[in-house]
């Protein structure tokens, strides 16, 4: 039987700590995150980073799966336009991101929960500020709770 794995129990707004899954490309944003680390910059600890060879490798399924399994936000980091190690990968990401945002909005997921940023290998500070900013925005939105099964309501519907 196909049932959703519940990754996380519902949390109350008071104890809520946003969980953000970040997908960083190997050549720019991941190096920038590395730079932020070696430069001892501090940022919010709410982000779990997944390294991809290219932001263009980001299958929209990864984003939907993250939300479905309990992420409150998804951050995508890639090289600046024109700087892609594979020339065109980040343009594909950009196009998919625009369409994905429209789809997420239809599914009731707020725009701020899925964010795309171009961060080059030299921009360690941009990693810090982007993460901090996103964590605060998602904290303000509250838990997403997409992974929580809805109860089959047995009472009458009143309209």
């Amino acid at each position, binding site marked *: *039987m*196909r*049932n*959703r794995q*519940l990754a996380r*129990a*519902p949390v109350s707004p008071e104890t809520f700590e946003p969980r953000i899954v970040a997908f960083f490309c190997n050549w720019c944003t991941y190096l920038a995150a590395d730079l932020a680390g070696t430069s001892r910059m501090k940022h919010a600890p709410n982000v779990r980073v997944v390294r991809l060879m290219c932001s263009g490798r980001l*299958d*929209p*399924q990864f*984003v*939907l*799966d993250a*939300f*479905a399994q309990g992420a409150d936000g998804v951050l995508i980091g890639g090289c600046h*336009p024109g700087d892609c190690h594979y020339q065109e990968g980040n*343009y*594909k990401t*950009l*196009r*998919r991101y*625009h*369409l*994905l945002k*429209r*789809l997420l909005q*239809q*599914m*009731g*997921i707020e725009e701020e929960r899925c964010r795309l940023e171009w961060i080059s290998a030299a921009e360690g500070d941009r990693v810090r500020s982007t993460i901090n900013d996103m964590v605060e925005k998602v904290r303000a939105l509250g838990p*997403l*709770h*997409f992974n*929580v*099964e*809805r*109860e*089959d*309501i*047995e009472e*009458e*519907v*009143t*309209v």
Partner: protein
Amino acid sequence: MAKPKVAFYWCASCGGCEETVVDLAEAILDVAAAVDIVFWPVALDFKRKDVEAMDDRSLAVTFLNGAIRTSEQEEMAHLLRKRSGLLVAFGSCSHLGGIPGLANLFDRESILKTVYLNAPSDVNPGKTVPAMHYCDNGHALELPHFQSSVKTLDQVVEVDYYVPGCPPTPRILKKAVQTLLGADLPPKGTVLAPGAALCEECPRQDSKPEKLAIAEFRRPTQIVADEQTCLLAQGLLCMGPATRAGCEALCVNGNMPCTGCCGPTSRVQDQGAKILSCMASLIESKDDAGIDRALDAIPDPVGTFYRYGLPGSMLRQKRSNGVQVSK
């Protein structure tokens, strides 16, 4: 030797899947010669109590079409699961949720309001809406519960095999029946259709350019599509690249783009995400404004990319702002 017993049942569906059985034409005689159809509400007069009187696993195969929306459908799914050796999710609705699954974009209240009170075609001066319990002159009537979401069959009971399509073509059904009656059963959970994408069996495959770049998406009503050229190359949203093969490109042969009814290919979990990925990356523009302009031609991404599979997708249903309770 007694012939294997077979049942057909329908839940939230339109009846098109039943039509497939009839569309077997003369091949239905072969099916009838090989099996005993003992329960088929759309065609034969057997009732639920007849199924209740059967022994567990006495039905060799049950083909169940339709999604699960009401408590009665869920009960029948459980009952038929118990009585059947093999349970087959038949057609898009029981496989992935189907067209009725798009109701997962709305909550129960707004569905009832729209259907019974607000639709322009409504004539309902008494503002009557279906009630679970109703009493008139001492006669109590009960209706099934209208549940909070549309579910695929396998979200309710164990499913052995899936037959895709809206509806499955007679050829897919015939092959599925042959497979199920044969000696070598495929592994449990198999979708009984080819695993590759529709483009693989599309007659226009050769006209699909090596590199596609779409400046503007078009709808079938906006152009007269050339009958030989790949529909994607003509700017039409053809779901072929992310849809399972098996239908022999029926829609494309009718000069209409594939709408994705056979669900994801064998290596993909979420068909909508995959087709979204494909369509978006074909856009020619490289800047925000140009991309947005191209995307404006897809006003309803969920309805387009999950037309037959929202309940079976990763997100399953629109997020509700109401109470969500963990099970």
